[in-house]
């Protein structure tokens, strides 16, 4: 069954710029007996998440608000399995779709068709599955014959429309979103609104990070806020 369970999860970012090169790390080891720089050792990590507890089951629509750098994206990435926690345990069951960066997999040099394949494949969709959706995607994006041109010939609105059409075509059970998706011109926006709400309805769990209180209030049934890596 789809669920997410985080127990006491902490994420520590190594501040690698402070000790990146081999030279420094050899030097540090060689001199560590001479100079015990305890402060530096403590400074080498930055706590991105601090002992976060979260338990979600199907039907949960979670909104996360908080200032920049408070750990919203870090939390989403941790749930997506990108960052491993330095303490605590994570248990995630379900098929995750993370829309942290909607332009991921959009390549300006490749044609629209190739981009559909590339982006869908990054969503772990098999070529056979993509084939069944491809007409729907092209149709919804409204790109028509432009679909065979490389993306660098598109306007930025057209690229957004294509990306939007691709990601909303594949259903998932857990949806992670960093900021709401807004796309294209007025006409497309109307169409997109409906597709997006259907897409979100089809997911069992939604986690949405946003700055906009209104977006959160409209789409979520539980709102948390984050501050300095703490989930409140």
């Amino acid at each position, binding site marked *: 069954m789809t669920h997410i369970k985080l127990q006491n999860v902490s994420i520590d*970012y*190594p501040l*690698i710029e402070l000790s*990146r*090169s*081999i*030279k420094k*790390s050899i030097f540090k080891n060689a001199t560590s007996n001479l100079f015990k720089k305890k402060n530096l050792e403590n400074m080498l990590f930055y706590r991105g998440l601090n002992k976060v507890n979260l338990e979600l089951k199907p039907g949960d629509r979670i909104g996360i608000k908080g200032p920049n750098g408070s750990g919203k994206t870090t939390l989403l*990435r941790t749930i*997506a*399995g*990108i*960052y*491993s*926690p330095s303490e605590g345990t*994570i248990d995630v069951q379900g098929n*995750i779709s*993370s829309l*942290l*960066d909607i332009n*991921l*997999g959009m*390549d300006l*040099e*490749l044609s629209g068709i*190739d981009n559909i*394949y*590339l982006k869908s*494949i*990054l*969503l*772990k969709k*098999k*070529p056979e599955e993509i084939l069944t959706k491809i007409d729907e995607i092209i149709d919804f994006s409204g790109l028509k014959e432009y679909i065979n041109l*490389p993306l660098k010939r598109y306007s930025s609105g057209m690229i957004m429309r294509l990306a939007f059409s691709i990601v909303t075509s594949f259903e998932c059970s857990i949806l992670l979103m960093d900021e709401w998706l807004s796309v294209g011109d007025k006409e497309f926006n109307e169409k997109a609104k409906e597709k997006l709400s259907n897409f979100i309805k089809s997911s069992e769990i939604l986690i949405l990070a946003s700055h906009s209180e209104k977006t959160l209030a409209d789409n979520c049934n539980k709102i948390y806020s984050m501050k300095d890596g703490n989930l409140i």
Partner: protein
Amino acid sequence: MRKKLSREFKESYLLSFVWIKLSTLDILKRYRRSILGPFWITITTLVTTTTLSFIYSKVLNVEIYEYFPYLTIGLIYWNFASTLLNESCETFIESERIIKQENFSFVVYVLRVISRNYIILFHNLLIFLIIFFILGIPSIKNLLLFTLSLVIIFCVAIPISFLISILSARYRDIPPIVSSLLQLSFFATPILFKKNLLNEYEFILQFNPFFYFLEIFRNPILGEPVVAEIYIGCIIIALCSWLFFLLIYNKSKDKISFWI
């Protein structure tokens, strides 16, 4: 927590459509809008090896018909090995955006680099048709031995490429070290010259890891035997690289996403 390596490999096998697509698109992108497309790879290599054969067969005073196949196979091998190792330095850096959004196993990104280089290698293998024309088609046994060498090289490419990928993600001093070592190794590997020209110093080749894989790659096509010691050497190098890789991998698998 990242999964155990065996499960990561299994997952990457199931996701083979991902890395195969990524690597094919990498190649297609490079030659987009050119008429010959990826066959530029073949032509570039052919022009280089033909020119070098002309010059060096005179310098070394050998027959060009004998020297051209020798040099060509060696250079194709070298292009493959050096590009693979150089590109391994960029594995996680070039895929940074994907890593920050999708939780693919890291094996996927390494296989993207390796398969991309195999695709280039296969384009270059077309030149072997010219060599077959000069030397005659090798026996079935030699063709099988050659195919075996591709498999052996693949088995070693995984840990070594992975190891370089991890180390260069952490220490950005690794890429320049790798590229300068490769430059040096080219002249220390018998590609331009024949190994018997080293006379009593031929033994130093056994300290050159590139030599072993070159032998199993080149000799079958030239119709020359590969001695058992060479295969043993390949196996020892493979085992050592897997061992080093496993040690480093287990220590770093949960940190790679933070490093890039």
